[in-house]
């Protein structure tokens, strides 16, 4: 006992586990047992929760390959008896997938780019410049985050139905312009930072800029660089991570958004609105095929819905696999604090 205290490291290496345990009076065993117990409990908990999150996706995948007969078969639970890809064909036809995916891609990409570009400017302005009423305008940003778009939806609806800029159109053509169902208003709104969750992007970008030291910009000013040039030459190259993450969020949220799409892009075929209408269009389709008024069974319509949902999220899953780090790290690096 006394010798082990003199040269503990040398003896610890040579001693077996039980020897050390005996010397420590049972402490080593107790500690490793708790460690083992904790990691087993943690594994069970995390495995369960991960399964919980992933299970609906697995379930959709298995259901999407089943025929209608399989759905009613109580023996078939996850592996289809009659393997089929008909569900995919039908869902693709109902959502007009090929046109919708191109439309969604174009709109999501352009909207996301526009929103990120504008929010970047605004966020930089809030982070770096001192000007009168700055606090007031920043409070407005917070307000934009807090106001549900549904509150102003009804009047925006009318605003764009009878669109006019200071009465110019009414003077020249005699009537206002109906911009509803047109893509233009949404681009205008995005250019004015009023798109989907844009307040949040401004907040995140401002937070990011505030964490970058000012020295570099001051050096640029001293060397005679203008404000805009400083922004594009000095600041922009440093902001890749936040641009990346805001872009990804804007893209993904626009891709799945139902509210703004339904409101402004009603006539454009999009994946998100197509999915929302999928069950109705399935009913109409079956009615057209059979020529009689029938209600579609819940199981079958859910099966088609699952297939449609999968078809929407597959591009997103692929995107996430590649850009997972950008998504997750962005939030932690932007250092959201109050």
């Amino acid at each position, binding site marked *: 006992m006394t010798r082990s205290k003199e040269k503990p490291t040398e003896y610890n290496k040579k001693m077996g586990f039980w020897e050390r345990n005996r010397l420590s009076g049972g402490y080593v065993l107790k500690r490793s047992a708790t460690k083992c117990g904790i*990691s087993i409990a*943690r594994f069970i908990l*995390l495995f369960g*929760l*991960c399964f*919980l*999150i992933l299970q609906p*996706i697995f379930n959709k995948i298995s*259901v999407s390959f089943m025929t209608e007969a399989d*759905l009613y078969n109580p023996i078939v639970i996850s592996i289809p008896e009659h393997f089929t890809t008909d569900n995919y064909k039908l869902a693709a036809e109902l959502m007009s997938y090929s046109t919708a995916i191109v439309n969604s891609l174009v709109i999501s990409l352009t909207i996301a780019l526009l929103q990120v570009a*504008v929010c970047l*400017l605004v966020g*930089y*302005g809030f982070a770096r*410049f*001192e*000007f*009168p009423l*700055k606090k007031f*305008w920043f409070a*407005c940003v917070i307000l*934009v985050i*807090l*106001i*549900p778009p*549904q*509150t*102003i*939806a*009804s*009047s*925006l*609806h*009318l*605003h764009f139905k*009878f669109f006019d800029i200071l009465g110019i159109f009414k003077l020249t053509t005699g*009537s206002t312009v109906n911009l509803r169902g047109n893509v233009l208003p949404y681009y*205008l*709104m995005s250019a*004015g*930072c*009023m798109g989907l969750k844009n307040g949040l992007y401004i907040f995140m970008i401002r937070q990011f800029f505030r964490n970058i030291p000012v020295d570099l910009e001051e050096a640029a000013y001293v060397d005679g660089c203008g*404000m805009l040039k400083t922004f594009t030459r000095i600041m922009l190259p440093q902001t890749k991570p936040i641009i990346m993450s805001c872009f990804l969020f804007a893209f*993904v*949220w626009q891709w*799945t*958004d139902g*509210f703004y799409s339904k409101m402004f892009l009603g006539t454009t075929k999009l994946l*998100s609105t197509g*999915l*929302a209408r999928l069950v109705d269009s399935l009913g109409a389709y079956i009615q057209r095929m059979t020529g009689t008024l029938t209600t579609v069974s819940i199981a079958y319509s*859910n099966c088609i819905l699952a297939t449609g949902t999968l078809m929407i999220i597959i591009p*997103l899953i692929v995107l*996430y696999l590649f850009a*997972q780090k950008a*998504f*997750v790290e962005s939030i*932690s690096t932007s*250092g*959201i604090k109050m």
Partner: protein
Amino acid sequence: MKKRKKYEGLQLRKARAGYLFISPFIIGFLVFMVKPLFQSLYMSFCEVELGAANFNPIWNGIANYKDAFLVDPEFNRLLVEEITRMMVYSLAIIVFSFFMALILNQEFHGRALVRAIFFLPVILSSGVIIGLESNNQLMANLANTIEQTTEGVSITAALEDILRTSGVGVRAFETVFDIIDHIYDVAIASGIQIIIFLSGLQTIPASMYEAADIEGCTKWESLWKITFPMISSLFLVNWIYTVVDFSMRSDNQVIEKIQKVMIEQLRYGPASAMSWVYFLLILAFIGITSLVISRGVYYYD
């Protein structure tokens, strides 16, 4: 005189540049937010008549509000239900995400994978998809079948029965069971909150825990005395984010109701009145709760 001096020379140029930088926001805010906001406030006091080329609101006082509260059969019920649901779930989400962040902050194999899986719902369950998820009958049928075939042997059900028959605090238990039954909803709504908590946890210096450990502090004590105060400001952020996120979800019944009144029935006045009631309630809720929370926030520096 002093105030004028503040914005001169470079200062003035910087102030001007600042305004130029945020001008898109100002224009957008004035055109697409302030105007519709006031218009919808005005419309909520009006009966809106839709013409072919224009619309004319006719002032009729608080009739729309009376209509929403006293005449409409669902609105009151939906509002109360939705706000209680929001309170309970936001609380559950905060607790859950704090707990998950604590676990994910530990060292173990496959941590990156688990983290990626927990963040997945942020991407996959947004927008239209979440609304579809909640009424999936097929899944419910499947769950029923499984439950019947296994003859209801489940620990949770037994535990539920015991606690229910004990007769103490039945209402509270019911709420807890409700949350446990909807743990999926809680899990998929807490992706961003977990990440925010995680980033906060990683900023706490390890030396603090070490010092506490040497002084004889147990893990449990250091959780309450170090971890909790150090990331308390993030509770506020997460709380606000959760409530806002919850109030705007597309499967929200109040919002569905408002949209139904507006788009299908074309009754703009009542729809505006309802959305204003909802918005003000949410705003008051956020204001009061964040005031309460911010009293308990501890700032280290």
